[in-house]
């Protein structure tokens, strides 16, 4: 039973398109995150939600919009995709904002052509 699951695993799309990535966790956690990992493996926090409320919103273009319909789901919608958006996007979750114990999904490899 996968703890944090993301779909799709791979996403190949053209510049200018709009796409979404979905994330679900079955750990009963109340905090969820989106991370971006670039080609150099650097992990950068994008957003964090606690009980459906946005608590971290790093300097991310407003083409990226997260949505949390409930505590177990956090989706990421990206408008007008650009070449520089190509990266691996990871969803993660934790209990009560405890960042010392993050559980990650397997990632979504996004390639913008």
């Amino acid at each position, binding site marked *: 039973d996968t703890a*944090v699951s993301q779909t799709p695993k791979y996403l190949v799309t053209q510049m200018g398109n709009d796409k979404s990535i979905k994330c679900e966790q079955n750990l009963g956690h109340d905090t969820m995150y989106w991370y971006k990992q670039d080609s*150099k*493996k*650097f*992990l*950068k*926090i994008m957003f964090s939600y606690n009980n459906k409320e946005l608590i*971290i919103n790093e300097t991310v273009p407003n083409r990226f919009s997260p949505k949390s319909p409930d505590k177990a789901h956090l989706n990421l919608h990206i408008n007008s995709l650009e070449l520089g958006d190509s990266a691996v996007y*990871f969803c*993660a979750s934790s209990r009560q*904002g*405890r*960042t*010392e*114990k*993050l*559980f*990650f*999904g*397997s*990632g979504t*490899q996004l390639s913008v052509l």
Partner: protein
Amino acid sequence: QKEVEQDPGPLSVPEGAIVSLNCTYSNSAFQYFMWYRQYSRKGPELLMYTYSSGNKEDGRFTAQVDKSSKYISLFIRDSQPSDSATYLCAMSGGGNNRKLIWGLGTSLAVNP
């Protein structure tokens, strides 16, 4: 200067070797120190976390924190080919300041 520095490697060792992975940091407010392992095409997986200074051991893995030197280490004893992965350090402050700061990761290859 980056808040967290980690040598990206790659590090290549023979099976059975003792591996030492390290990170240095500049922010003395960090209280939580984590090591994650990331296999190729997978998400990071928490190996160990330590609060404040000291050592923590879990099987073949030992994490050390030296706050006076702002230096953390992960030791892997009797390394196995299955330990081949990228190891990421991460750290955060305490209280309400739990934003994680990540190292770049060290790529480790354990050769049979």
